[in-house]
């Protein structure tokens, strides 16, 4: 009986008991499901949040399509220059005819003794702003703005006979000038996919080219080699990528076209043929017939544009020898400069002028002097990350057209003295000879040792022959050394003491052999004289301006890149 009741009770209570147990389990399961559901809901919300954040980021990025970078450099220079003695042409004076000089005029030349000159403290600041504007996946606008100023220096320099004391657009950012931001580079760069090539139009990357990046401790900055061009050029360049033709990756073959002087707009292109007296002809004068003295007339007429047509070949190599990974670069370049002029557009202060106050004088081209061929080649080899060396060579050849610069004074000697037209001063013809083709050469070599990634030391040497010229404003006045007619040594230490900041200490020693470094023009030799001898700084040459024979420049700079 009791067992039956018990069983009945169990039967009655068991479902309740079982139900209670299940309810607990169910409740637990429901609670767990709630937690899981909540987690799923949260996860479902996250993509929406991410999508919102990504949209904000993409929108912000799309609006920020200008990339900026740059460099700020503060530099200290201390320089000593030595000038050897020379004869300075002063002009003409009236002369009473005599047995020693039967002519009514006589040139005035004053002997100037050797002297030293020092600029022991000079500070300068250079700010470069690099910008890249992405238009689409193929097109980009690239530019560089630059301000390069000597502390307390003149916005417009006083002319001292060197080309870097004429402010022109070619020297923007290369020689100290004003505190204005100048546009050194501004070009559209377009990558063609159909014909693997790169087209650039505008103010080109033509300054600080290879192998200057070795000294700078950075990447290559321009297309043309430094020994050929280190100035601001406006033009068009088209480089074809030769990878698919079996050449190493990055090999380029390119052509370029630039305008060095625009004779039309602002160049007086509509000026009719005109004449001006540039000297006197005494050929038929015998001392008694002054009426036989006739003027030497120079023709000033419409000028032609100066154009540059060039070709380049760049081949980068990256290879492994044993455990050593090495890189090398071969650069070849050719430029044909057509219808070269004497002085392009520019302004300078022509001082002192007797009886006058200094004032800005504007200069412009006066004559097309002929064409010039320029060949350059550079080999650069980097062994691992520690040792780099390079060699660079240049060759130029002039094709003069007989014209001379109108900046000058000419005196035709009588038959008894040779009967030649003698140029007593001024700038003359292409490479110092308006009639005959002349050649010149230069070479440039250097090594750099980087024992660590933050410290490097280097030594460089360049030599230019007496008539050497390269498209860069140059003489020993803190400008590019590669235009020197003579020998230049440079040693430097480059220490990156912090992220993107470096100190540079260096010394440059210039030994000039020949006057007028940096000029593509020059006065002719006197009758019976050899030009190289006539312009040799050791031979007391006849000069209108003094040119140093040695320059010793110590410098130190703080460079910050961003």
């Amino acid at each position: 009986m009791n067992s039956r009741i018990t069983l009945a009770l169990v039967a009655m209570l068991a479902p309740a008991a079982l139900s209670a147990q299940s309810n607990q389990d169910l409740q637990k399961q429901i609670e767990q499901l709630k937690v899981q559901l909540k987690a799923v809901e949260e996860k479902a919300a996250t993509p929406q949040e991410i999508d919102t954040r990504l949209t904000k980021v993409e929108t912000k990025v799309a609006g920020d399509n200008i990339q900026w970078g740059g460099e700020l450099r503060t530099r200290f220079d201390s320089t000593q220059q030595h000038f050897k003695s020379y004869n300075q042409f002063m002009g003409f004076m009236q002369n009473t005819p005599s047995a020693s000089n039967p002519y009514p005029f006589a040139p005035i030349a004053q002997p100037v003794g050797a002297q030293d000159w020092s600029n022991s403290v000079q500070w300068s600041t250079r700010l470069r702003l690099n910008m890249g504007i992405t238009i689409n996946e193929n097109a980009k606008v690239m530019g560089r703005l630059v301000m390069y100023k000597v502390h307390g220096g003149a916005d417009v320099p006083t002319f001292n006979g060197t080309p870097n004391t004429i402010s022109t657009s070619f020297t923007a950012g290369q020689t100290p000038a004003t505190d204005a931001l100048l546009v050194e580079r501004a070009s559209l760069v377009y990558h063609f996919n159909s014909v693997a090539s790169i087209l650039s139009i505008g103010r080109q990357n033509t300054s600080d080219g290879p192998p200057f990046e070795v000294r700078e401790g950075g990447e290559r900055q321009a297309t043309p080699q430094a020994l050929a061009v280190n100035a601001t050029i406006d033009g068009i360049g088209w480089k074809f990528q030769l990878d698919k033709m079996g050449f190493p990756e990055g090999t380029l073959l390119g052509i370029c076209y630039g305008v060095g002087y625009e004779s039309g707009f602002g160049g007086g292109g509509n000026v009719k043929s005109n004449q001006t007296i540039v000297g006197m002809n005494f050929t038929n004068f015998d001392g008694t017939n002054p009426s036989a003295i006739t003027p030497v007339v120079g023709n000033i007429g419409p000028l032609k544009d100066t154009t540059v047509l060039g070709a380049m070949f760049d081949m980068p190599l990256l290879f492994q020898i044993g455990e050593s990974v090495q890189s090398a670069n071969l650069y070849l370049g050719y430029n044909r400069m057509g219808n070269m002029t004497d002085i392009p557009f520019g302004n300078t202060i022509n001082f002192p002028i007797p009886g006058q106050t200094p004032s800005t004088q504007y200069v412009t081209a006066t004559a097309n002097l002929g064409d010039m061929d320029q060949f350059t080649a550079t080999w650069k080899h980097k062994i691992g990350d520690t040792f780099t060396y390079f060699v660079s060579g240049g060759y130029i050849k002039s094709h003069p057209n007989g014209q001379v610069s109108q900046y000058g004074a000419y005196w035709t000697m009588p038959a008894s003295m040779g009967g030649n037209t003698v140029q007593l001063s001024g700038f003359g013809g292409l490479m110092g000879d308006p009639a005959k083709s002349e050649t010149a050469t230069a070479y440039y070599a250097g090594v750099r040792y980087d024992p660590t990634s933050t410290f490097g030391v280097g030594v460089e040497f360049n030599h230019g022959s007496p008539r050497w010229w390269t498209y860069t404003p140059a003489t020993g006045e803190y400008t590019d050394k590669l235009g020197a007619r003579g020998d230049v040594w440079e040693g430097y230490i480059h220490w990156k003491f912090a992220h993107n900041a470096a100190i540079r200490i260096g010394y440059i020693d210039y030994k000039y052999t020949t006057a007028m470094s940096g000029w593509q023009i020059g006065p002719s030799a006197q009758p019976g004289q050899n030009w190289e001898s006539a312009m040799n700084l050791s031979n007391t040459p006849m000069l209108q301006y003094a040119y140093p024979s040695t320059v010793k420049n110590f410098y130190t700079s703080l460079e910050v890149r961003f």
Partner: protein
Amino acid sequence: MRNTLKLLAVLAALTVPLAAAQGGSDTKGKFFFKKTCKSCHTPGSAAKEITPLSKTQAQWKAYFAAGKHKKGAEKLDSVVKPEQVKDVQTFLVNHASDSPQPETCGG
């Protein structure tokens, strides 16, 4: 001039002890990146073109810190030899989009 050259030589000699491990090699990194990574990461490829400009310096550092490849599907050092990873990282970071000297690999 001779004294100047002697001074530079002495300074160069003194810097030799400073040649401690400074991280990877930029030159080696470029070489190994072109040899290993560029074989797949080329324009138009399924793997998508990759150049140093593809990321910022911080992004490259984060990528190599994670040590993963193919969106985490495999370890990075299964693709790039472990002894070369540091060099490749140095090259990519040195020429990243926000570095002072950004470059594409083909430059």
